[in-house]
């Protein structure tokens, strides 16, 4: 038995919900226009806007959607809301 009833938040212990996934979203970085529409709708907060290379950043190019597969559950919401269909769901 643990004493007390305090649970400290420890993200390292968080269940890796990526294991749930049976469809995998893939971002076509050429197609992605960097609009961020998909970001706040992802229920797992698994999408970040990232520069693929330092070169891109230097050239002032827009960052692109980048998915954290440790937590992505593969729901397909991001692919659905993307205005340019830059995300494709593939069988894992």
């Amino acid at each position, binding site marked *: 038995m643990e004493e007390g009833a305090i649970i400290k938040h420890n993200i390292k212990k968080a269940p890796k919900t990526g294991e*749930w996934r049976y469809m995998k979203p893939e971002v076509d970085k050429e197609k992605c226009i960097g609009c961020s529409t998909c970001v706040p709708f992802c*229920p797992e907060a698994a999408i970040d806007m990232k520069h693929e290379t330092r070169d891109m950043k230097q050239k002032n190019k827009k960052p692109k959607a980048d998915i*954290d597969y*440790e937590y992505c559950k593969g*729901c397909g*919401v991001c692919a*659905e809301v993307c205005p340019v269909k830059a995300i494709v769901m593939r069988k894992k």
Partner: protein
Amino acid sequence: MNKELTKHFAQGHSSCAGCGFPAAVRTILGEAKTPIVVANATGCLEVTSTIYPYSAWKVPYIHSAFENAAATISGVERAYKALYRKGKIKGRIKFIVFGGDGGTYDIGLQSLSGALERGHDFVYVCYDNGGYMNTGNQRSSATPYGAATETTPAGKESFGKMETRKNLMEIVNAHRVAYAAQANVAYLQDLKKKAKKALETEGPSFLNVFSPCQNNWKFPTSQYVNVAKLATETNFWPLYEISAIGGSAYGGENGKYKITHEPSQPKPIAEFLKTQGRFKHLFNEKNNPVIDRIQKMVNEEFARIVSLTGE
């Protein structure tokens, strides 16, 4: 992992893939400019975010029971006020409750009413997924007319739920709180603005947020945003706010009711209904009159809200 979005509510929670409420919760918490304390009624959000020994909450969080989240936050808020007065705590803390529709429209209504009436400084957020989802889709007083649930099954003698939805916004408004608003997880910019206003309000404020449940409404996991959009595009879920105490929130005396987003050409209600398995039976010919009735209800409620905007 998105750092900004997981500042208050982490990844790793176990809501179903494609659930509607995580985006709503994160958007609301993202508007907090002060430290916050969260109380949460029993339900899917609570169960999926606090599976022992884990917690998705990075803010102080308290779960007591299904029926008393508003009473719980009342006590926490009063304790804070007492400590503040004694100088033991400095600075402003804001208190937020999250409750499902079952926990708000039904079982927690009495404690919500008490907390609103006593005037505690808190925001109550109801994420409305139209039923008792965590226990397998039993009807609540928020379940739409005509929806098939475990306790209102559709069949030969029944077209699903035969009672109309309770109008919670009107019940909350009867308490004359400074700010109450209806929002929708598909409209995050609108939700953001409303969350900001609710958090800035001194005293009680209320948000009723439309939050699809892919599991029990029966639609594909990728569809919650589309389904929720249709709820507003058909006027099934109007986006509006009520400032009951003139001037103190926004809009003042003349703008008691304000519609924050109005579809230019509302779509027929069938467009919303046909996206979900819980309404599938309504598309049998014999149930056509039910769809007509729903359309009438939607039209009348929307006209009522419009009439209250004074426009």
